[in-house]
């Protein structure tokens, strides 16, 4: 029999969702100060309204849902799923007020795209957008990349009793330090250090590309936040093409590489265990999958004679594969070139790269390298079982921070999530083809990009696309970022609320 959730469960959920919304409101103060400094009065007013709305929402939930009870695993997961939806709605307020979105749905689309570090966008006339509002888009990626619940864990939670469920619910399955709050704080320290160093590197390359110092700094910080968090928003509509600079492209590639690496591996490298970089199974798997997808893309592009030389193959072919594989979505080609020039093989390689994604416990989306490795090893394991005598004891190990054994439970869990991603990629493509006149290939490209939180677009994502497709993309971005489990929990919770006794 389905048990109806208790009133106290709902109070815990709403109280924590309120905390996350308060966090989003507090974050709006950064672009607000920027807007005031630049005398962008109307965008500042938009951000102020957004901030106050978050405060009112947060204060009402905190006042009406005060509770000292601790969250169960289910409640923690439901909290995360709902917190992301609430953050999307509240974060969309300043974007909608900016007047650059056709509807509130479009503004919500961009907010979810930012928080889920996807990078697909429905903004109109981005090139005339205010700096403050533009910065808010990029800050959404930084917050979402770290995990908006991790933000709350870092700044609002002192104990760790409720923290574990919230942390796991956000698609982070690794505790780098014994305490989850300490882990969240470590992730922030790492990210802030990289923010300073990475922004400086990008700033220097932006200056070399011909940007003036002040604007160059704005672009560098914005692009770092979008690149390190494998997001993909850029200050200009032309994405990375705008800069026309090999060095700037190399710097963004470096940032994307950093973003696609597991925070546990960052921790190992930071604490002196640099051998982990060579031994880690995710790094090795990424090496293999990047090599394979790049080779496919290069063969496809070379066969069609699309790009004239090796430098062009590096700047266009390799760059787009890294951008897709890391889940970033920066583009050095125009979106429609994927369709008009790239041909089937290179397009297929890009879709595969986007679908596979980066490392677990990083800001990347997609299936993730560890799952790819375990799936492949489990197939090998089964083949060995068939060949060897039944009495043989077969054990497979892999190295991720420490030696680990591949167990049946591990394989089952990996295959469930991998299957969810593949089904979501295909289902999204089918829905798009049903509600629009795009080809299945284009639909699969865009669907994989949305669900894998990548952000590369072949031109399908635009403000004129049907609302149904926009909603499908929002669900894909949300579910893909949370790795489905929290979303399933929310659905189960809602069913229990409606039909439970």
């Amino acid at each position: 029999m389905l048990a109806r959730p208790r009133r106290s469960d709902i109070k815990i959920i709403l109280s924590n969702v309120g905390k996350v919304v308060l966090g989003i409101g507090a974050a709006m103060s950064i672009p607000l100060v920027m807007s005031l400094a630049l005398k962008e009065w109307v965008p500042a007013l938009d951000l102020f309204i957004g901030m106050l709305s978050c405060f009112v929402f947060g204060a009402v939930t905190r006042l009406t849902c005060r509770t000292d009870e601790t969250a169960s695993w289910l409640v923690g997961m439901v909290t995360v799923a709902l917190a992301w939806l609430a953050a999307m709605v509240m974060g969309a307020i300043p974007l909608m007020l900016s007047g650059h979105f056709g509807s509130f749905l479009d503004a919500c689309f961009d907010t979810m795209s930012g928080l889920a570090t996807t990078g697909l966008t429905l903004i109109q006339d981005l090139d005339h957008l205010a700096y403050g509002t533009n910065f808010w888009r990029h800050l959404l990626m930084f917050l979402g990349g770290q995990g908006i619940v991790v933000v709350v864990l870092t700044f609002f939670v002192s104990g760790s009793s409720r923290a574990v469920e919230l942390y796991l619910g956000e698609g982070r399955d690794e505790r780098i330090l014994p305490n989850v709050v300490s882990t969240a704080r470590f992730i922030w320290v790492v990210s802030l250090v990289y923010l300073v160093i990475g922004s400086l590197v990008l700033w220097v390359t932006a200056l070399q590309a011909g940007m003036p110092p002040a604007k160059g700094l704005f672009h560098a910080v914005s692009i770092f936040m979008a690149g390190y968090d494998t997001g993909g928003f850029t200050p200009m509509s032309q994405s990375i093409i705008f800069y026309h600079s090999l060095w700037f492209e190399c710097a963004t590639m470096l940032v994307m590489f950093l973003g696609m690496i597991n925070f546990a591996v960052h921790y190992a490298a930071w604490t002196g265990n640099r051998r982990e970089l060579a031994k880690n199974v995710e790094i090795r798997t990424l090496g293999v999958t990047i090599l394979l997808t790049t080779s496919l893309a290069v063969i496809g592009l070379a066969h069609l004679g699309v790009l004239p030389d090796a430098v062009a193959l590096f700047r266009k072919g390799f760059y787009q594969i890294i951008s897709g594989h890391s889940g970033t979505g920066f583009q050095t080609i125009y979106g429609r070139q994927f369709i008009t020039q790239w041909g089937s093989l290179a397009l297929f390689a890009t879709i595969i790269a986007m679908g596979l994604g980066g490392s677990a416990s990083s800001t990347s989306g997609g299936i993730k390298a560890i799952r790819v490795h375990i799936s492949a090893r489990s197939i090998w394991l089964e083949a060995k079982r068939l060949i060897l005598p039944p009495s043989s004891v077969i054990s497979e190990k892999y190295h991720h921070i420490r030696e680990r054994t591949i167990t049946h439970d591990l394989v089952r869990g990996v295959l469930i999530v991998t299957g969810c991603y593949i089904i979501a990629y295909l289902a999204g493509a089918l829905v798009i083809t049903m509600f629009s006149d795009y080809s299945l290939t284009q639909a699969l490209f865009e669907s994989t990009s949305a669900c894998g939180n990548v952000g590369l677009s072949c031109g399908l994502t635009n403000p004129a696309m049907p609302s149904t497709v926009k909603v499908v993309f929002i669900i894909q971005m949300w579910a893909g970022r949370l790795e489905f489990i929290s979303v399933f929990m929310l659905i189960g919770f809602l069913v229990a609320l409606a039909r439970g006794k």
Partner: protein
Amino acid sequence: MPGTRSSTGTGRAVAAAAALLMTGCCLLLAWSLLPGPARAAGRTVSSTELIEHPDKYNGRRVAYEGEAIGEILRRGDNAWLTLNDDPYRHRPRREYQELKGGNSGIGVYGPYAEASRITRLGSYDSLGDLVLVEGTFFKANPEQGGDLMIEFDTLTVLRKGHAVNRNHIGAKPVVAAALLLASAALAWMWWRSRKRLVG
């Protein structure tokens, strides 16, 4: 013979008129073939056309018109520009107050001396100069890392840009004031409830 002289005179006049007409036609034809901003303006290509049909225009001379956006990225004696040919090149969103879709444009590369004629670039508070460039289109220029772009040799400013000051605030101040009051009331209630709990 007067009649013969007369007919010879008429013949000369007709021949002269025909020669003038022919010369005029040749001049007109030559003028129509000569590249020039005013002529080229009538046969500009759009960025969408170039991106959708790169093979058709690859290596061909084209004229392209758009709003200079963002920055002039100087590279020695040359410079990169981004020219947007979307509807916002005439009036940005802040002036339109209606939306016309996303931005579209293309990167162009050419002499800095030409690019430096641009006095205003498009941004939040500016509508950039509307310029016309003429040059060669490349679907993947080997000298520019495989960029799809136009390498221009002439640039003409068709219309100067201007500052954009129009603000449509609407009811925003009233909404902000109402939210501020609500926030103050909630903060007071929060403070009281905490005090009661502590007490």
